[in-house]
């Protein structure tokens, strides 16, 4: 196991906020998503996992429990932490990558090939001679990821990596992560926090949902909503149809919650998802967004 923790507890002085995560495991080759509203402890949890923040509880990295004798300097060589705000790089991108490779002990005559392999893998080969200021936020993140991969870390901790990225770049980045884990030369576990629920759930193997510092859900993706006996859908219609939609849902006595332009509908599992969709189409409603959130952490946000 890459990382294991029980009873993670963190309280800040002069703050009522308390982080409490009873159980957490990060296995090799898996991606763990940490979700929750702003200020609910995602960054705090990731800082603890990355070894930046001290916390109570029983923690172990690479099957070695943390104690007074732990050499964090050595341990952190195997942990790559990408914070929300990535510090800028100076000089050309390839120069920085070569420096990291040389510091990590890769033989001088192998560095070029080694870096080209990583950059090719991440689709960054054409940009290696540019400078930090010449690339977009998305590329900066991917180059930072490339740099982190040089040391072949066994634990990748990414705090809000998708923030400030456009949808295409988000998907490209997540696909990079998936590819890294598929590659056997990177025996890594990934933990990342994000507000992009759909994108995170698509790639994650397990999720941790935090609410006010408490772990409301922690487990495999398949376990989310497994015990639910009702459907939950999230949908949006054009403005003109919104009243008709609400009237219809009220008429059918479905439980509804509105968040902005989105309506969350909960109904018993007597009918199928297809039946529900057909009913909506029959009402001549123009649906602009629809998603089944029965087995998504999104459902947890409104509970």
């Amino acid at each position: 196991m890459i990382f294991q923790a029980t009873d993670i507890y963190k309280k800040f002085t002069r703050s009522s906020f308390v982080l409490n995560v009873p159980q957490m495991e990060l296995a090799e080759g898996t991606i763990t998503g940490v979700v929750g509203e702003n200020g609910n402890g995602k960054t705090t949890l990731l800082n603890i996992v990355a070894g930046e923040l001290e916390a109570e509880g029983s923690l172990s990295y690479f099957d070695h429990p943390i104690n007074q004798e732990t050499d964090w300097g050595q341990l952190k060589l195997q942990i790559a932490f990408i914070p929300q705000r990535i510090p800028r790089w100076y000089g050309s991108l390839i120069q920085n990558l070569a420096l990291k490779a040389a510091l990590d002990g890769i033989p001088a005559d192998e560095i070029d090939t080694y870096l080209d392999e990583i950059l090719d893998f991440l689709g960054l080969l054409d940009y290696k001679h540019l400078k930090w200021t010449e690339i977009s936020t998305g590329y900066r993140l991917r180059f930072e990821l490339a740099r982190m991969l040089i040391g072949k870390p066994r634990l990748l901790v990414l705090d809000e990596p998708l923030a400030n990225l456009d949808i295409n770049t988000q998907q490209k980045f997540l696909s990079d992560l998936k590819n890294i884990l598929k590659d056997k030369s990177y025996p890594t576990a990934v933990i990342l926090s994000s507000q992009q629920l759909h994108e995170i759930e698509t790639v994650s193997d397990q999720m941790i949902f935090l609410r006010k510092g408490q772990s409301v859900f922690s487990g495999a993706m398949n376990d989310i909503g497994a015990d639910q006996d009702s459907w939950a859908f999230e949908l949006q219609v054009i403005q003109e149809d919104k009243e008709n939609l609400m009237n219809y849902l009220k008429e059918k006595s479905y439980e509804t919650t509105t968040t902005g332009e989105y309506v969350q509908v909960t109904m018993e599992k007597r009918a199928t998802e297809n039946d529900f969709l057909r009913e909506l189409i029959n009402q001549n409603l123009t649906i602009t967004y629809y998603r089944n959130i029965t087995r998504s952490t999104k459902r947890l946000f409104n509970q």
Partner: protein
Amino acid sequence: MKRLKEIFQRVDAQLLKKKPIQWILGLHIFPVLVAVIGLVLFLIGTVYSLVPLPNWRDFREFFETLNMAMILPTILLTILFIIRQVKYNSKRVHLKLPHANSFAMYLYFIGIFILITAMPFTGNLGAFLKTGMVLNKTEFLQDQEALNRGYAHFRMTKRRVTDSDEHLDEEQLQDDATGIYYLHDQIYKLSPEGDKLIFKRKTLTSGYYAMDQYVNYNSMDTVPLSQVYSEIEAFVEVAAKYQGKTTRTNPIDIVQHNLKAKKIHYGYGDMTPAFNHFENYEQLDNNIYFNEQFEDNDGPYFIMSWSFWKFYWLLALGLATLLILLCSVNIRDFGWAMLSIALHPTVYGIVFALFMFVGDFDDESLALGLLILFNLFAMFVAFGSNFKPTVKRAYAITLHVYAPILTAIYLTLFNEMSHGGFDDGFAEFVLICVVIVALVSTYAFGKYYKKQYVDPQG
């Protein structure tokens, strides 16, 4: 130029891959630049023609101008080095650095700062070595005695008397009993027996060391005539080595002339020397002064003076300490620490003033007591408290920066309290202690910063 650039890029790329730490330290840039610029300056320093010896003032001003001209390049090179270290040799950029080799890097920083800041003086070194080939210190030390013994017989300036109430004349001047002390400079007369000469031993050089004794001849002397003559002969011989030509060489003739010369100038008009047997006094004076400065390591030759270097390298030590701090700590913590460093003396001053205002305290005891109190508080915050990491680190950095300065202050206070004098020996003792504390504290705080930034913090 293009070819040079290509070569540099190749070396740069190779060093980056093979010796990344040396690349970060800019071993292929800064020492090389210093060496090239230093060599050019050294050559410039040797270009100045010293045969015959040039005008001392022109010579000195040439090197002063050279030193001044190099201030900007030196500052630029220092800043470039600091920027490179902040960019690459920083915890924020590479977690492996500088914690792994923090102290070794600190020593390198001291070395490179000495090299960079001393670079402008390589011109002076060139001048010193070249002068050493032209002038002979040992010979000059031997010649000094003959020059100083004989000089008084070759040149005397008149005394200007403008006060009409002082009806002095040459007769009175020859009489010791007048008691007009300021005329003693102009005394040059025979003893009543006529076999000795009484005169003021004015010297050509300002004094010198002979047999480990400081010799200064500026005093009244009574010398047998035979000795006077031999002194004059020796002077003529030695002065010639320093391009000093005399109009008269016969000792008897010279003494006779000097005895008759008018030594007082009445009124405000132009004044000629009482006697002057030099053909080219300015040239001799310049050459002797040149030798004297060379012998004393003065003027452009100050770089050979230990008294300059023993304090000079504190500059490199200070710069190196600040840079290793910049590389070892978070920039935000560094900012807070700078604020703390600036505020501590202010707060200390206010508290000290308040105590002095409300009570009759002994200055030194109060200063020492408050200093210890402030130190204990800072140590408590940095090492023993539950304050936020930023506060703890800011206090630790403050202690680190102040440690050498406080050493000097403590030693001075203890010295004053024990009524010890402040002489060169004490100053050197303080200097050694300051350097040791700076080195030891940087080593110890390096461990502290490593723990602070690598281990998880509360």
